[in-house]
């Protein structure tokens, strides 16, 4: 138990679970507030569902290289690298799901959406955004992971609007619509696949694609103003 907790919180630096809990609680409060703003309750439900995608961005901090900067040191660690990430992911999903479930119960009946429908409408969104951010952040950084996750969401939404009948992931689908159930299943499946890829890449440390190569030291130092930073 102690090992599990320790793995979830630390590798080389602690994950700030307290801040993540504040983020989830703040998300809940703000989303509940925003959902009440539109005159049309359907628009309120839409806000809630998109907010679930936003909440998923919190996952990027768990896997980003900035959280465990000197990764080479971890190669010698006795615990498999992927296990820490898996535990962190599980912890974040539990935290996010708790916020989602609470909000769904609070908004039960809004615009004809039952709490169960709201959960079905929000949880896959949370999972998808978390998984996309988790994988992308593992390959790049917090900012890169966040941007990639948002891009994936906007891209999927655009594709769904472009091919409303043919594209399997319809983020705007509503209960009773032809793609509602299938779309939820696709989103969960896609999310699990993304998470699996992220953990696999983490397990095979050093073979990750997309990591910037180290530059050979040059005789002429580059100006400080040209110092590169990964976005």
């Amino acid at each position, binding site marked *: 138990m102690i090992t599990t907790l320790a793995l979830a919180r630390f590798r080389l630096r602690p994950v700030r679970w307290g*801040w993540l809990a504040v*983020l989830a609680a703040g998300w809940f409060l703000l989303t509940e507030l*925003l959902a*009440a*703003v*539109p*005159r*049309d309750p359907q*628009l309120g439900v839409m*806000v809630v569902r*998109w*907010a679930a995608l*936003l909440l998923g*961005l*919190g996952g*990027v*901090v768990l896997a*980003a290289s*900035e959280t465990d900067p000197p990764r080479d040191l971890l190669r010698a660690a006795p615990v498999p690298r992927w296990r820490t990430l898996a535990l962190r992911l599980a912890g974040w999903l539990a935290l996010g799901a708790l916020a989602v479930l609470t909000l769904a119960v609070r908004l039960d009946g809004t615009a004809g959406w039952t709490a169960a429908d709201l959960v079905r409408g929000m949880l896959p969104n949370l999972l998808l955004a978390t998984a996309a951010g988790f994988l992308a952040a593992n390959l790049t*950084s*917090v*900012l*890169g*992971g*966040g*941007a*990639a996750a*948002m*891009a994936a969401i*906007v*891209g999927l939404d*655009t594709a769904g*609007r*472009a091919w409303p009948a043919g594209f399997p992931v319809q983020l705007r689908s509503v209960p009773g619509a032809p793609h509602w159930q299938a779309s939820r299943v696709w989103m969960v499946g896609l999310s699990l696949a993304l998470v699996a890829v992220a953990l696999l890449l983490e397990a095979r440390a050093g073979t990750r694609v997309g990591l910037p190569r180290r530059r050979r030291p040059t005789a002429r130092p580059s100006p*400080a*103003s*040209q*110092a*590169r*930073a990964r*976005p």
Partner: protein
Amino acid sequence: MTALFGIEARHLARSPLLWLAFALAAALAALEMSWFLPALAGDDLLAYTSGGLLLSGGALLAGAWLGLRDRVTGAADLVAVTPTAPWRLQRARLGSVAVVAAGVFSVGFAAALAVSVVRGGRGTPDLRLLADGALAVVLGGWVGLAVGRLTGSRMVAVLAAPVWVVVCFLSVAGPSLRGISLSVQHLTPVLNPQDHSAAYGLLPDPLWPHLGYLLGLIGLVGVLLLALASRGSSQRVPLRPLLVAAVAGLVLVGAGGAKLLALPDDVLVLGPDRATWRPVQGESDPQAEALFADPGWSFPADDQARACAGDAALSVCVYPAYGQRLAQDMHAAIAPVAQLFTGLPGAPTLVRMVPVGMGNCRDAEAQVPEAWVRERTDRGDQQTRSFYRGVYLDCALGLHPGGSEHLTQAGEAVQLWVLLASGDMDRQQLQQLTQHAVPEPVPSPVAIAALAMAELPTEQVRAELAPVWKRLRAGTLPLAELPGQRP
């Protein structure tokens, strides 16, 4: 300083964050444009709304990265001891963000217009949209810079972009917000005008005050960032220019914002004379809806629909922004039907595009609202042709297009005969309509009457319809008096 400006601009221009947003904005704009008929005066707005918001979010992320960079790379201490004043470094960064952000938006805007031209779009794009969109993206970049510098948190920077977009989106949905009568939707960095006409422009037109408002906001954010940069440094930013810029920014924001808030949510164009234009606050105007539903109302002549195509029997005129090709397409769809009604009293000889309404009939003119023609989201070619014919047929048969009244049985039979005689429908399809039509099947007597008319030569039907035509349009002609019904 110029070298630093160039270096920062190059770094930012290579930022994957900005180009990721650009790719998404391009995809979204392409999708939106595919749902509408091409017109430069219209596609410019789609490029602005679709691209502006996403690019603004991308610029915010890229700006945040720039704001965080010194801290992330550990170069902050190094920068602090350089002899150049920190505010000068910040000024170079602000300039580079502005140039790159405006450049990226301009590239996207130009690309969208080029695509529109290739698709057949005509007209004159509103270059104020280019300026407004560029300023909105610059503002996003500078806000990102401020977020990165002030918070120093990557997570806050990541969350700032979607929050920025969501706040903009909610403001855009202003008219439907609860308990707010002010037009707060105009205060969002990227506007989302609900109504636009290729002939009459944005309705209402918030662009000039919005440009001033955005300039003011950018000025204020710039002043804040320069002041922050010189904090704790012995080399202070000159106070007087900073104060002037801050006051100018406040004045622009105040004046522009007040003007924007005072604008109505919507403007109904009821004629070419601006005095007849009616401001609408909220989602709908019951008086306007009643006006449009009135069969006696029609849009006055305005000489705006000047791209025409036609023959002796029928002319179709649309706004030049849609090109003569649209007029030709509409004419080709309607002409076979119009030929059958040539010479009959009340049959339209002109189909004219108008900016508003539900399709109205005026003397020998059928009016087709611009929005109905331009937006063709789910319509196939066949449905589009049927739609054009429908507008014409409604006016020809004395029905108010888009109204709630229905054709009499005689009118319905004549409509079916027209579709049969023009080749738009065959007998088998008519048989199917008697069994499975939506919303309700065609009654058998009507179908039988239409088939009987179709058996007769067209000229004979026209000759026999002429004496009873007025009664048919008035809805008082019984089915039994149609051609081919009498033994």
